[in-house]
């Protein structure tokens, strides 16, 4: 299954995703779906961004493309991408 590389920004703690063309992006819709080989390389490359103090705690999660939009396999990542389901006024979902 394809994967997405994610992390949190060091300063704000904000959730971000990796896109090889655009760097770290804030919206899941803009995240790049990676093959196994790409994912492994991207995760290794994330160490450099950690070193540069851009992000912390990078990891990969499973996702698939649905209607052209990345959809995570786990509820956890869907919530992380949007914000608390009990506070639609907070998090990325709030716009």
């Amino acid at each position, binding site marked *: 299954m394809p994967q997405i590389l994610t992390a949190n920004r*060091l300063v704000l*703690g*904000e*959730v971000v995703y990796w896109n090889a063309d655009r760097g770290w992006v804030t919206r899941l819709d803009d995240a790049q779906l990676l093959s196994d080989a790409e994912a492994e390389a991207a995760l290794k490359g994330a160490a450099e961004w*950690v070193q540069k*103090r851009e992000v912390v705690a990078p990891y990969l999660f499973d996702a698939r493309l649905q209607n052209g939009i990345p959809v995570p396999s786990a509820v*956890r990542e869907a919530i992380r991408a949007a914000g608390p*389901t*009990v506070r639609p006024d907070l998090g990325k979902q709030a716009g």
Partner: protein
Amino acid sequence: MYRYDEFDARLVRERAEQFRGQVARRLSGELTEDEFKPLRLMNGLYLQLHSYMLRIAIPYGTLSAPQLRKLAFIGRNYDRGYGHFTTRQNLQLHWVKLPDVPDVLLELAQVEMHCMQTSGNNVRNLTADPFAGAAAGEIEDPRILCEIVRQWSTLHPEFSFLPRKFKICVIASEHDRAALLIHDIAIHAVKNEAGEIGYRVYVGGGLGRTPYLALEAGSFVPKRDILAFLEAVMRVYNEAGRRDNIWKARVKILVHQIGIEEMRRRIAKEFAEIKTSGTLELPPEEVERIAAYFAPSDFATLPEECPEFEAAKQGNREFAAWVKTNVHPHKMPGYAIATISLKPIGQTPGDCSSDQMDGLAAIMDAFGQAEIRVTHEQNLVLPHMRTSELFALWQKLVPLDLATANHGLITDIIACPGLDYCDLANARSIPIAQEIAKRFADPERQHDLGELKIKISGCINACGHHHVGHIGILGVDRKGLENYQILLGGSGAEDASLGQILGPGFDREGIVDAVENVIGTYKTLRRDGERFLDTYRRVGAQPFKEQLYAH
């Protein structure tokens, strides 16, 4: 309440400045994340699902009005205008920014607060009976010992790197309103036959992956020896507790591995050695000095009966309903203890907005309340209200959405932040609590069911105390989807017990129906006056299983 002396004040100020330096070194790259993480955790700063989360210590759950105002200010200016009161009687801010945290710590220091020991493998912020100093029949104010232990354990060099976190709770009443026996050390003030006050000390309680109730380690520890006894327990644990496996590192595992008899023997040996040196004997004058901070309020002499209060109840059904559930007897005639529910139907249990905090601080001023208490059930308590002023209090609580009449009822649900916020969670807790509350919102239905404690955790770490819920709900991950197990028969009160898993779990769509099914079985089986827990203990799990898994 306790007021900082110059040493306390300097300590928290210096700590804030120290953390400012650590944050600066992290942002400049001088510290790596691996180096910085334990430093931020020592100051209560976690990286959660969406952002950084700051956990603020509220020692033994007591806040003054200026402290509450400061929390409101911090919530409004450094977070998103609210905070979340936890089962550890603390407050969590879920949206702080790393560079702001040193400023937040300095703001807290101005009102004698901090975030130390709200994380990490040390003695955590102590918890206590939220009715301390107000409950009838109390032996002494448990916060006196809490404060002594707080001073003893703060930055204690020997106990700053324990095998795992360590939680201590103190109560001094027969009624347990603090979930005493689920703590690593549980202290119950008691009197001996000579009328002297001492402490019954239990060791090895805790929930999580391996839940245990604490076992008695000392039946009567004299007051002067309590720190020596606690130090003895800590030394045994620090030496013998496992450090190779995070899941087996709590003192509960040690106690249940070697047995309580062997634990008692080891504690006695350490205790004898400490006693020989005599250095940890509590000087009575120091106890008195600290006790003076918790001296009983200047209570007026009031009649037991209060005609205007009775008239207000007669004239207002909603007020009467609130009194029935949220007002409790006080030790002094003419006074009452008022529980302020943070469980409005459909809202997040334990959440309190900055506006509500400011409103409550104004209420405290208006009614001369020096303190407000945070409960492990995620509610607040005004401990010393005049009965004659309860109606006026209630009228002020209504517009703040803080007058929900549900304390102890089915909608007064404990829920951890769960997968909506928490990095460790496997499933959401809050929406389940909200949906159960909506399903059972009808006041008549709630009162008909009587005392019923539902506690929900979003993972096995059990911050929502699901093991000690009359009905406990544990959220788990099932192939990436949320799934919920039901436990029945737990209690965190003086009749403490651990609930048992009923059977296979339910998905997100089925869990509320499943709870309703369990309630239906109780209604069918209950005898007159039986609480849910009483019925369960009489009939066992089988009838509930049969109904729940009939199809």
